């Protein structure tokens, strides 16, 4: 797949729309193993990004990532702010001045985002966080594909984990068999990429 600025713009716009649409559901997940604000937090960033782009659409490919990063870092208010914010910022850095990404370059960028979350969160896969959605998504992308089935399986597996990072970690075993809100919003992020992109080696 060739990733252009338009495709990326569409990807992040779809992500923002999905977040706003699923706001209640995301907060509901967070109500169970967190403080109930994940949907509200994410929707705040999403709405600000949409508003910005309605006024001034992104010009360069890296603007998409950079502007999303800024909205998440400034506007969100919960852990997901610095986490997604850092991910998007690292993606912007990986993209640099490029105006088009090959599939390999997309993988590099998404991996940079993944590493950004790890660094910011001092976390890793297996801890019932958004990382547990990002890791299998990266694996798929390496094969120039990304399927809903992969995302759904990843979320189901994440449910079974015990949280050891973030607020949910205070709950210990009680976090098992609950949906991690950040994993659920990351699923939306990659769903948006599926919808915006054209996978299958073309």
């Amino acid at each position, binding site marked *: 797949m060739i990733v252009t600025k338009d495709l990326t713009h569409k990807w992040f716009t779809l992500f923002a729309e999905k977040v706003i649409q699923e706001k209640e559901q995301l907060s509901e997940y967070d109500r169970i193993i967190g403080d109930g604000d994940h949907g509200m937090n994410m929707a705040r960033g999403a709405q600000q990004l949409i508003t910005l782009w309605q006024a001034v659409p992104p010009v360069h490919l890296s603007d998409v990532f950079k502007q999303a990063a800024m909205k998440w870092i400034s506007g969100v208010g919960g852990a997901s702010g610095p986490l997604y914010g850092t991910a998007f910022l690292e993606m912007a850095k990986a993209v640099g001045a490029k105006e088009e990404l090959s599939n390999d370059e997309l993988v590099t960028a998404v991996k940079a985002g993944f590493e950004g979350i790890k660094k910011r969160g001092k976390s890793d896969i297996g801890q019932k966080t958004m990382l547990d959605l990002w890791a299998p998504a990266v694996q798929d992308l390496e094969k120039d594909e990304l399927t809903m089935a992969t995302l759904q399986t990843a979320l189901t597996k994440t449910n079974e984990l015990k949280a050891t990072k973030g607020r949910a970690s205070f709950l210990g075993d*009680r976090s098992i068999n609950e949906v991690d809100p950040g994993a659920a919003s990351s699923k939306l992020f990659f769903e948006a990429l599926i919808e915006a992109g054209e996978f299958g080696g073309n």
Partner: protein
Amino acid sequence: MVSHSKDIVKGINDLIQQVAPNVSITYAGGTVNGDIGTSFETVQQAIEENTCHQLFAFYDLGSAKMNLEMAAELSEKEIEILDVSFIEGVYCTAALFEMNADLTVVISELEQLMVK
């Protein structure tokens, strides 16, 4: 929760209401005039206003603990005073009680927060 400041306990209460809206949480902060300090009477009130009979109690500094202990001795309720880090201990306990965790689980988590 017993603190030297009315603002500290109000803030912690706001924070944990988000994670534990179904746990009975009461608090006393500051002197009767609202200054920095603790007051035996408001601690007693916080104990009696709580809807539970068995309470976990948390405090910020040693003198708050003394008022807490005096009030606990005079109360009919079963009160466990925890020498754990204040905000972190309260947060952890509230979150676990909201999930109906066993007392033993809560206590073993709190043991890792002992700093006093």
